[in-house]
């Protein structure tokens, strides 16, 4: 069939402003039939805003879109889907307590849900190599398999364009290979794919063309295969970045020790921790890799002290048993933590930065005397954090929720690092921050380690872990492997561990 138009989707001069930010500024690009087109840019470059407009979640302030040569202005996602556009979001919208086929039935056009949906799910998923059992509960599936459910749901609607938002961030390297094979097959069949990512090697391996966004503007359109990762990075970031360098390990004595911690999860679909054992030595940075939802949250709860363990000496800090200690007591002893979820866990969006400083820094920084809070002390400290970590905010009296994700992240990391902890645990320490700020945070962590602190980084970003860790462990299904020297590990070996036993087939729940 000869397409009526050379391009499937054309964007011309798309502009979208939010209060205080121009998210997209005069963005134009074209996606051909069967083309795998990358949208490349850092966090905050405007990629998500752009695809939300294509998918009908947002509407552009100005500019026009054409689909098949016809004007295209979807009022809502249902209209976008009716035009043959599907989207797989970074955060899935699935009900854990329902089965795969029930979830798919709920999420698609009622017309399509008629007839034998179950067998069509099996048919489509097998054809594209994304095997799924339609009768399993979502809660029992790994994150990678949940993504398959979302993709199959998309495919059942016979899309002409699929938008994928950072799809590989939840996958093991092996699962990534399977996904890429599927996407290539779709491309050969004439289905176009708009692939959002900031991972350069992936884009070079997969995509036919790339549109690079920086600060809401298109800075280049190129053929990724003809570029190097370095040249793409420079286009994306606009400057040459030098990653934090680790100069040899200088590990000292063991500061933190966790012995055979086994703890059932409190959530119905949570992950139980099984026999987690870990030593951290002063002066070293240890990384924990793993696909999201493999026990990282549960491990963090135990490390913070939100859940205590017995016997108390199952966790030791500088030789002292802290398994039964509360978060405050652990902080006094020198242990600080940054949980992954910023809003409502590491920080309270409705409270000011000053109050958020009181939240976790009050004991080490003595903000409380005789039960009364010294707001001036907390204010000085917050201002210090804002200055040192270059947090962009209208003032420390403004609520944390008014900061952008990356700036709040800088504040939270700064708040913990500037307490000079002896053991620091951070989940996704550079989540959402730009390359320059990420380098600053990495440098601060390296400096902290140089001063003799033990640092544990829990991250899904393998590149980050490989760049700053001395040793790397992998968490899969609530089990933690023994950390290995970073020089000895390869992406493949970590990927295999990340899959654990649940890589292709999940263990029973």
């Amino acid at each position, binding site marked *: 069939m000869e397409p009526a138009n050379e391009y499937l989707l054309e964007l*011309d*001069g*798309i*502009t979208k*402003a939010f*209060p205080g930010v*121009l998210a997209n*500024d*005069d963005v*134009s690009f*074209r996606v051909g039939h069967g083309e795998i087109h990358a949208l490349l840019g850092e966090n905050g470059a405007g990629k998500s805003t752009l695809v939300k407009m294509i998918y009908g979640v947002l*509407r*552009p*302030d*100005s*500019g*026009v879109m054409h689909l098949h040569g016809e004007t295209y202005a979807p009022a809502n996602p249902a209209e976008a889907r009716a035009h043959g556009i599907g989207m797989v979001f970074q955060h899935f919208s699935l009900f854990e307590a329902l089965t795969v086929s029930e979830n798919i039935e709920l999420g698609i056009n009622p017309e399509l849900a008629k007839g034998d949906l179950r067998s069509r799910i099996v048919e489509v998923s097998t054809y594209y190599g994304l095997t799924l059992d339609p009768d399993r509960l979502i809660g029992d599936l790994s994150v990678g398999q949940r993504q398959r459910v979302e993709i199959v749901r998309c495919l059942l609607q016979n899309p002409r364009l699929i938008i994928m938002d950072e799809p590989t961030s939840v996958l093991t390297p092996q699962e990534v290979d399977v996904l890429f094979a599927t996407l290539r097959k779709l491309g050969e069949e004439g289905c176009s794919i708009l692939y959002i990512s900031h991972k350069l090697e992936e884009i070079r391996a997969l995509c036919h063309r790339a549109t690079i966004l920086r600060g809401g503007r298109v800075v280049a359109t190129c053929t990724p295969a003809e570029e190097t990762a370095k040249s793409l990075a420079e286009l994306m970031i606009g400057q040459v970045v030098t990653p934090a360098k680790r100069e040899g390990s200088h590990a000292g004595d063991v500061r933190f020790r966790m012995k055979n911690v086994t703890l059932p999860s409190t959530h119905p679909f949570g992950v139980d921790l099984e026999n987690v054992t870990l030593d951290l030595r002063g002066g070293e940075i240890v990384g924990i890799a793993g696909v999201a939802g493999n026990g990282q949250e549960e491990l963090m709860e135990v490390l*913070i*002290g*939100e859940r205590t363990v017995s016997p108390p000496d199952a966790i030791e800090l500088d030789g002292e048993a802290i398994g039964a200690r*509360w*978060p*405050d*007591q652990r*902080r006094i002893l020198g242990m600080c*933590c940054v*949980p992954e*979820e910023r809003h*409502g*866990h*590491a*920080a*309270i*969006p*409705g*409270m000011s930065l000053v*109050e958020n400083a*009181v*939240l*976790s820094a*009050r004991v080490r920084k003595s903000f*409380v005397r005789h*039960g*009364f*809070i010294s*707001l001036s002390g907390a204010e000085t400290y917050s201002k210090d954090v804002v200055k040192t970590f270059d947090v962009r905010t209208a003032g420390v009296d*403004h*609520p944390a*929720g*008014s900061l952008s994700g990356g700036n709040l992240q800088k504040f939270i990391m700064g708040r913990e690092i500037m307490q000079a902890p002896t053991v620091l645990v951070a989940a996704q320490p550079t989540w959402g921050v730009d390359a320059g700020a990420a380098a600053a945070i990495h440098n601060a962590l390296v400096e902290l380690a140089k001063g003799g602190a033990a640092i544990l980084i829990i991250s899904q970003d393998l590149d980050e872990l490989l760049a700053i860790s001395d040793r790397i462990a992998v968490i899969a299904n609530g089990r933690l492997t023994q950390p290995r020297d970073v020089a000895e590990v390869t992406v493949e070996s970590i990927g295999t561990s990340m899959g654990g036993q649940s890589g292709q087939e999940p263990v029973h729940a």
Partner: protein
Amino acid sequence: MLRIEARKEPSVVMLYATPSIALVLTIISGFLLFAALGKDPAKATYLIFVDPLTSVYSLSELMVKATPLILIATGLALGFRAGVWNIGAEGQFTVGALTGGATALALYQVEGFWVLPLICLAGALGGMAWAAIPAFLRTRFNTNEILVSLMLVYVAILLLSVLVHGLLRDPDGQNFPESRLFHDAALMPILIEGTRAHIGFLVAIAAVIIAALVLRSHILGFQIKVVGLAPRAARYAGFSDSHIVWICFMISGGLAGLAGVFEATGPVGQLVPALPVGYGFTAIIVAFLGRLHPFGILLGGLLLASTYIGGEAAQISMSLPASTTRVFQGLLLFFLLATDIFVGYRIRWLAPKASTAVPAPKPAGE
């Protein structure tokens, strides 16, 4: 096209303006309601909202009614901020009156400056004990404190009734279901000679000031706010959830019990089955009307007290139904909750076509 969109930060102006807007809407609705009933709406509105402020006597009555409302609402507001929903203040009020009143009867004709403080202490402890039941069940078995505390209200009212019909009945009272009149040493000192206004009002003011101070700069107030806004962040900070549940129930139960014993040893002067008249429930409205802030509660308590007095006046002089007061209180809470959306959201009038605040697109070129 009307569109409701989230504000980047909650509007401070709206935070203070919405109680007034709700009050105006309530008055307008009441106006229409009275007109529909065939009563003179202007006169009814005047009687309910203005008349109570025109004489020393009615002002003193305002203090009498506002005292329990302010005391109870101040305690409840602390809990509501932490997401601890004590709906049973009426029961804690009743039990406080009962334990305090029983103490007064036990010390009948005993003189001494310590008699009244002891009675008040007994009342506060009674309220706390009653509040301990939902607190224990919530922290131990994760039961819903709304249901438990609410149901205990009816238990408390029946308990009071049983005791004044039996154990605490006045031996010289010809079998009327009421206790002896308390002796003078067991009565609240009067604030303004010739009226029923008593020093409990000053205690209520003191409670407001202390609560405001705690919320502003004490670590307990901070814990309450954090637990209410973000329970996970509270655990991260090291605040114990059950600790806060207990503290909130003890404060709100204690203050409700205190309000109960003030009522018994103040304007009533004895234990009667009709002692609980709904202050514990009205205080919930007061707490929200005052934006869960102690100073707001002070104003809200005075306003709601005026609807009690005005409602009674309108009942007598215009033969309006007794439920008039309740209708007004209900309307007020309804409009308050309805206008609350403007604190976090704003309504924007959008032209049919999306506005173009940014430069028009340049011609596309490749």
